[in-house]
Structures are given as structure tokens and as C-alpha cells.
């Protein structure tokens, strides 16, 4: 056992990158759930985003265009969910699961030509001399733009929900859609927009995996990240900063356990493998002791006539 082989700076830098797909998807889902909709299709939207982003990035040679396409792809798929649940009033749980299955299948179909293709690489942000600061430089100033976008998104969602009128309306729709409707807010329209936002975020999260983290296209490559993002939203009590904390904790311990294994630490591997899940759950459950509850209308179908 030799812990000195683990470089903490590289570890922290790696955990930020590992956490970003979960962070993006979970932030999007948080907005959706705060609007009172439970979309279990995160995994499907992520994988569709992964292939849309990958394909467009390869065709255009620009990873940034790829991310835009991923966001659009995810949003388009989520629009299907919105159509089913907001217009046709279908059950949200069933529709969400169907969306995941559909997304996995569709992405496999779209991706057939892209197996084994190498995508264009997205360069890291250039912070000039800042990147040369010891310790802080590699941790904070040596990443790709999307990673910073993820953090900015958390801040923006937090500020919007807390301080703006838009955020207030969104929360009102999520807490009690009948009351919001009585006040004259367009519940269906607001929810549809929230669902599309969630889809766009999930799509970008997926593209982060296929364009930056792995980077290549393989069928089913998101391998359950969407479900982790979903769980994270609940354990984070629907609060943006806790989502960030949870995602970093999860990503961090996942990285740490791989590194510990490599260093030959004498903890049984099974404990190491389960540690990211357990520690993330425990920390977030302790944090959620402040009685924060789920949005009141979460998962309930709304129709103006009810």
C-alpha cells in the first residue's frame, strides 16, 4: 500500500470532470421536478444527447456545435414526454420509463455509423497565467468550458429559483398547480418549458460523456448515470447547491476508490465499490434533516377541468 502514488491535485481535477455529466443532468431534472413533473426519462435523454452531440461534432468538426446539438436533441426527446404527459395526460412514471427505453433504442440506431469514430477534442479553457498557480491552477483553471458551464448553471438555477419572478412562478406551479392555474399561470406551458430545459441539460450531460470523458461513441454508454442523477435530485432535497455537492461527492469518491484500488489499499474492493453510493446518500440524508419536502404537485397530472 502506497498512498503517495495518488496525486490529490489530479484527483480533484478528475472528480470535477467525472461529476459533470451527473451534475448537468441532475440540475435539469431539478428544474423539472420543481415544476411538479417527474421525468424518469433522464437516461434516455442523456444517451440521445450523447449520440446527437457526438454525430454533429464529428460532422462539423466543432465540439461546441456538438453540445448545442446535444441540448437540442435532448430537448426534442423531452418534448415527446411533454406531449404525452401534459397534453395526452399520460402517467408520468410510465411515460418516463418509456422515454428511457426509446432513447436507448433510437440512439443505438442513430449511432451505428459512429462506432469507432474519433470525435474532435474540445480544448481546455485558456486562463493564461492563472493556470500556472500551484495547486489551484490545475484544480480550478485547467478544464473544458462545459465543466464551468455546469457550475454556472447550478448558480443560475439557484438564483433564478430563489430571487426571480420566473422562479417563483415555477415553484408555484410545482407546489400547487391548481392554485397556480387559478392565479392565471399557464401550467402546461410552464411545465413544458421546464421539461425541455431538463431535456437540454440531460442531453449536454450525455454529450459530456461521449465527447469529453470517454471520448467515443458506444451503445448504452451512459450506463445508468441518468438514474444516479435522478436519485441525486431527491437526496439533495431539490436544492441546487446540494445537487452540486452530491455530484462532486459521488464523482470524487468514485475516482478515489479507483485510485485506492490502484494503490493497493487493503480495504476489500466491495466496500470501495459501494462507497460512492453510501457516502453520498448518508451525507445528503443528514443534510436533508431540515424538513425540506418534495414539491407538492410532483408527479401529479394537471388538467384545467379538475
Amino acid at each position, binding site marked *: 500500500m502506497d498512498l503517495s502514488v495518488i496525486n490529490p491535485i489530479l484527483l480533484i481535477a478528475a472528480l470535477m470532470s*467525472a461529476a459533470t455529466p451527473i451534475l448537468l443532468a441532475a440540475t435539469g431534472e431539478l428544474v423539472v421536478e420543481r415544476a411538479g413533473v417527474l421525468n424518469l426519462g433522464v437516461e434516455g435523454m442523456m444517451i440521445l444527447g450523447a449520440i446527437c452531440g457526438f454525430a454533429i461534432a464529428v460532422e462539423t468538426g466543432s465540439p461546441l456545435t456538438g453540445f448545442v446539438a446535444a441540448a437540442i436533441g435532448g430537448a426534442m426527446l423531452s418534448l415527446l414526454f411533454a406531449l404525452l404527459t401534459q397534453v395526452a395526460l399520460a402517467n408520468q412514471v410510465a411515460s418516463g420509463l418509456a422515454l428511457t427505453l426509446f432513447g436507448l433504442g433510437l440512439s443505438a440506431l442513430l449511432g451505428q455509423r459512429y462506432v469507432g469514430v474519433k470525435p474532435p477534442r474540445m480544448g481546455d479553457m485558456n486562463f493564461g497565467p492563472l493556470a500556472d498557480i500551484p495547486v489551484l491552477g490545475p484544480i480550478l483553471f485547467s478544464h473544458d468550458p462545459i465543466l464551468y458551464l455546469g457550475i454556472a448553471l447550478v448558480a443560475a438555477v439557484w438564483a433564478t429559483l430563489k430571487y426571480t419572478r420566473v422562479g417563483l412562478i415555477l415553484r408555484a406551479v410545482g407546489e400547487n398547480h391548481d392554485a397556480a392555474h387559478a392565479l392565471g399561470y399557464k401550467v402546461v406551458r410552464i411545465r413544458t418549458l421546464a421539461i425541455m430545459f431538463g431535456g437540454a441539460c440531460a442531453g449536454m450531460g450525455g454529450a459530456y460523456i461521449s465527447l469529453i470523458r*470517454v471520448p467515443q461513441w458506444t*451503445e448504452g*454508454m451512459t450506463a445508468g448515470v441518468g438514474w444516479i442523477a435522478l436519485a441525486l435530485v431527491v437526496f439533495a432535497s431539490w436544492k441546487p447547491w446540494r445537487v452540486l455537492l452530491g455530484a462532486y461527492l459521488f464523482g470524487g469518491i*468514485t475516482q478515489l476508490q*479507483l485510485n485506492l*484500488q490502484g494503490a493497493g489499499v487493503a480495504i476489500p474492493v466491495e466496500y470501495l465499490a459501494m462507497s460512492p453510493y453510501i457516502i453520498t446518500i448518508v451525507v445528503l440524508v443528514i443534510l436533508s434533516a431540515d424538513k425540506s419536502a418534495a414539491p407538492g404537485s410532483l408527479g401529479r397530472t394537471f388538467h384545467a377541468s379538475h
Partner: protein
Amino acid sequence: MKLITLLASAAVALGLAGGAYADGHEKTKVGFVFVGPIGDGGWTYEHNKGRLAVEEALGDAVETVYVENVAEGPDSERVMTQMALDGADLIFTTSFGYMDPTINIAAKFPDVKFEHATGYKRADNVSTYSARFYEGRAIQGHIAGKMTKSNIIGYIASYPIPEVIRGINAAYIHAAKVNPDVEFKIIWAYTWFDPAKEADAARALIEQGADVVLQHTDSTAPQAAAQEAGNVVTFGQASDMGQYAPFPRVSSIIDDWAPYYIARTKAVIDGTWESTDTWDGIGPGMVGIGEISDAVPADVKEEALAMKAAIADGSYHPFTGPLKKQDGSDWLADGEVADDGTLAGMNFYVEGLTGEIPQ
């Protein structure tokens, strides 16, 4: 009276139709249960190539069906049951974790033939088959031991099962033989297929100084991670992964299931199928060694090819003594060769490897 005649003739017609249907069941239906997607570029990709080869070789006589991404364990029973109920005559279950489910379902459908890959449990209608991947691992180990400059070789392992442990041992023995200073860092990923996790594992190994990464997982993600790092050697796993040649991928182990699948399907068609245990290696061609690229020095390449030839003609066995177990106890005496039983159930590291096998 008329009604009765009508009913009777209808019944006769139905009976005939039923009989005709039974006779008309000429196409032999072959089912495949896959653990990953067919586009994984590795393990499942090669099994699917075998499936396509069956279709091509036997044409109209067969019909194949497959289900991908089937989780190992109880859920796979559902898939196998469905296949059997849908009239499959022969079902290939292509991952170690399908072993008990295959035995369970085979007991329920005695007329359906089952073939389980990499397992060790058989029944009257269950055969097992596997490839001697460790022969390829020995060659990989030789090249890896010669190529490493940091003397640290990373190994992304999947599950602690004999097949994987055999691979680690075979690679280590031959790496240590040409480079006594070599050290293996092993990460258990607990997955066959999860590109993001495999990439993370590869990066963790590279950050800890590994300049050769061997993998026993199915995706090409570690190859991509190595390519990004720039100076790390990898080997294709299960499939050639030639898109990463000539560097980082310098060679590969290729599984070639096609001849076996065709032979077994033919046996079912001819009615000569019997429960057997097949374990073939480089010699019969079930294990192939992908082209050794020019990134490998010529003399190393020559040695590797010589070892391949020796393994193929049976003059060299990768597990030849003297070998000791990790705890220092004797395993094989000088010149002694490991027997298949020990290899099939291998659950120990050889001397020199550090760490413990998860139990």
C-alpha cells in the same frame, strides 16, 4: 348433421394444419443472449459476428434471434424463457453470470439445447464452451513487460472469476519473466461494460504511473483514454479494436466464435448435438492474436510471434512450472504444466502479484 360435418371437417383441417405446422418447422431457431450491446466493439461484438456467420453459412436453414444488454443473474432467466417459448432450438448464453440461470432454464426445457460461454456447469442439454484467452494474455504480458518504461502495468479487471484471474496471472508471469521489476496495479471495475467507468479506471492507472494498460472489460474506452495520455500502450480485448492501431493499441486478443457457432448449429440441425465441454485456444483458432503493430520493436514482435507459434503447436504452455502461489507455497514444479481443472477454477494469484482477490 351438416353442422357436425362442418365442425368435424374443421377439426380435421385444424389438425392437419397443426401437423403441417409442426413439419413445417424446418428452420432451426438459434437464440443468443448478450451481456452488452452488439456495438460495444469488444466481447459482444465478436459474439454477434459469430451469429451473423451462422446466418451466412447456413442460410435459410436457420433463423437467429438475439437480445442485448441482458443483466447477469435472475433477469436473464426471463429472457431465456421467452426465447425457449418462442421456439428456439439452440440458445447461446454468452457471459459467465448466465451460468446458473442457464442451468435452471435448461431443466425446464429439456428439448432445447443450451450453450453457456465461459462457465463450468453442464447438463444433458447444456454444453459449455470457452476460449483459452490466457494464451493470448501470456503474449500480451511478454510484450507489456518489454514495452513498459515505468515498470508499472495497469490492469482493468472486471469481476473476480477464474477466467479473469487466469488472465492476470498469465500476463503477470510473462511480464515478470522478461522484466523482473514489473509491478501490476489492478483495478476491479465490477462491470463488463461501462465506458465512462473504464475510462476513469484507465486514467487512474495512468495517473499512478502505468504506461501499459491491459483490460478485461469490453469497451474501447480505455484505448481512448490511453490515446489521450499519449505514451501509454494498450491491447485490444475480445475484438481487434484496430481503430486504435498502431498506437496505443499494439496488439489484441480476438475471440473467433464463428466456426464453433456454425458447427454447433449444424449439429442441432443434423440431430447429432451432444452436451460437450469445449475449451480451445490459439491452436484451433478460437483465440486470435491481432496484428502486432510497428510500435513494438522488431525483436519483441518476433519473440511474441514465436511464443504464439509454440503455444499453437502445443510445445509451450503458459502455465509451466516452476511457479509459486502468491503466499509462497509451491504450485507447479519445474517443467510441470497446469491441469485444466485447476485453471478452470483458478482463484489465487501467482507469486509476485500484490493485493488480494476480492472474494
